């Protein structure tokens, strides 16, 4: 505190001594942005002008995309002073600025990848795909890829929502009622830790369709962590919260809905997060083993045809889908638990 005060005092002294030198707001050139633009330009040049070792369909398109990115970066460097304006544009610019070093690394990595695959074939085909080969998957096979994403999301969201709803209700019941807890606890202890995938053979045999079987498995994988964490959330609610509500005439229903559940929500969201993670893995396994659609199936199919570029593309799409869903969950949590302080940002 003392040093800060002294510095402030010195500043005050200096500005008092030099009353006529007004500070000129000058924005320095965004050097990182310049370098990033140049690296993307370099990537575009390598892709376009070094000859490919074989016939690749989308080399020019890849170079064009890189060129567009380089141009966009040049534009951003030009409008960098707007960052100080505040508002939506300023915030957007600040975000891009923050990503600057990553943009450089990305262009450098893509160039290296381009060189060791399409240009000099250091890495053997077909196991290693070139960037333009992956681009080709997106430009040519997007109907099948899109359809797979759609089916995966459909299956996952159905199973996840059922599992989350059942797990939540079950967790509240176990946490609240001694009787339910008595009967459910041993069952939960025995069945819960069993990986949902272990049910796979039985599920495909017992359910009428592979879709319903997979929905069941995803729900099971989601339900266990949600149940346990809802239960522990309800069980660990500060007892004084109940005393307060009871002295004011609250009914049992009010105690459950307005005290126990809101107080347990932070824990419930941990369960929902863990459930989402395990539902991903069950989804992929189910799609690889029995369901004839979805990204897991696409991976299997691509591997069967030795279409490695398709496989990598599907992996990328799957990663984007999973991180997108987790981001969505965190957004919901941030909204619902806005009363909490110090939430982890995803």
């Amino acid at each position: 505190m003392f040093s800060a005060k002294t510095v402030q005092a010195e500043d005050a002294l200096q500005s008092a001594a030099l009353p006529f030198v007004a500070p000129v707001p000058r924005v320095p050139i965004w050097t990182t942005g310049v370098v990033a633009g140049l690296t993307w330009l370099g990537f575009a040049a390598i892709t376009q002008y070094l000859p490919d070792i074989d016939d690749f369909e989308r080399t020019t398109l890849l170079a064009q995309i890189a060129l567009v990115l380089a141009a966009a970066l040049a534009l951003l460097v030009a409008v960098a002073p707007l960052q100080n304006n505040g508002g939506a544009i300023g915030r957007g610019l600040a975000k891009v600025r923050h990503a600057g070093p990553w943009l450089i690394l990305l262009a450098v990595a893509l160039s290296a990848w381009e060189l060791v695959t399409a240009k000099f074939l250091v890495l053997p085909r077909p196991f290693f795909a070139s960037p333009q080969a992956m681009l080709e998957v997106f430009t040519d096979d997007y109907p099948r890829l899109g359809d797979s994403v759609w089916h995966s999301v459909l299956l996952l969201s159905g199973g996840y929502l059922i599992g989350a709803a059942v797990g939540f209700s079950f967790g509240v019941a176990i946490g609240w009622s001694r009787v339910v807890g008595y009967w459910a606890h041993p069952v939960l202890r025995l069945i819960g830790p069993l990986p949902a995938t272990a049910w796979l053979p039985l599920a495909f045999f017992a359910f009428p369709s592979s879709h319903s079987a997979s929905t069941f498995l995803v729900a099971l994988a989601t339900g266990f962590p949600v149940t346990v964490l809802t239960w522990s959330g309800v069980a660990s609610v500060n007892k004084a919260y109940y005393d307060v509500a009871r002295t004011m005439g609250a009914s049992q229903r009010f105690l459950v809905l307005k005290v126990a559940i809101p107080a347990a929500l932070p824990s419930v969201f941990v369960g929902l997060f863990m459930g989402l993670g395990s539902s991903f893995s069950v989804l992929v396994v189910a799609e690889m083993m029995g369901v004839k659609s979805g990204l897991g199936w696409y991976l299997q199919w691509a591997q069967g045809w030795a279409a490695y570029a398709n496989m990598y593309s599907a992996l990328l799409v799957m990663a984007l889908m999973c991180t997108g869903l987790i981001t969505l969950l965190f957004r919901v949590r941030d909204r619902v638990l806005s009363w909490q302080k110090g939430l982890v940002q995803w």
Partner: protein
Amino acid sequence: MVAAAAVAPVAAGAALDVIDVGHAFDLDGKKLHVLNRISFRAEPGELVALLGPSGCGKSSLLRLVAGLEPPSVGSVLVDDAPITGPHPSRVVMFQDPTLYPWRTVRANVSLGLEARGLLRTLGGRVDQALQLVGLTQFASAYPHQLSGGMAQRVSLARALVNDPRLLLLDEPLGKLDSMTRITMQGELVSLWQRSGFTALLVTHDVEEALFMANRVIVLSDRPAAIKADVSVDLPYPRHRGDARLAELRREVLGLLGLDANW
């Protein structure tokens, strides 16, 4: 505090009879006796302090009066009717504010009305109570944004919204800093004077008990028994430097066996 007149004292204070009450807890299979044949009566509108060393069982007595637990022996009567469970006419203000962190200040204060389905008809009381404790501006704040004193004021407003006939104060100022505590002692007294409810104040602060209460019931160590029932014959507002208060304090400290340290 000017806005106090806005909350009309609807119900007058209740009469409280504690008759021969004993209480014990099960602690690892052993009986822990906390109350030993306690009997006293609080007249309607009286402010009675229960003063005793910490851990003597004062708070247990308050929980019995609140109806949160039944007494092991004896009976507790409010207006000559035995207590069978909690009732919104007997509200407790706890040592911890125990505000719900997921509710705003306003929603916390609304709690009692909401629980009884009266929020729509009596919602105006929430604003009055907030005004009464001087927190109107913080109505949409969350508890983690409040200081300890402010949180305890919200807790007070949450109790008052129920228009209690018997307000049970369980060391409500125990965790506040001394300056806030002095301010709130005065505020509680003037509030009690205006509203006419009966109040039972549990405290281990001799000065607080004597400054606020009509009567101070001095309790012994656990299991708590009544040592003395000291009547504080001073008009309100009281002054902390009053010679009579100093005299009473010496007397009460003597009853607690602390006169040698004074």
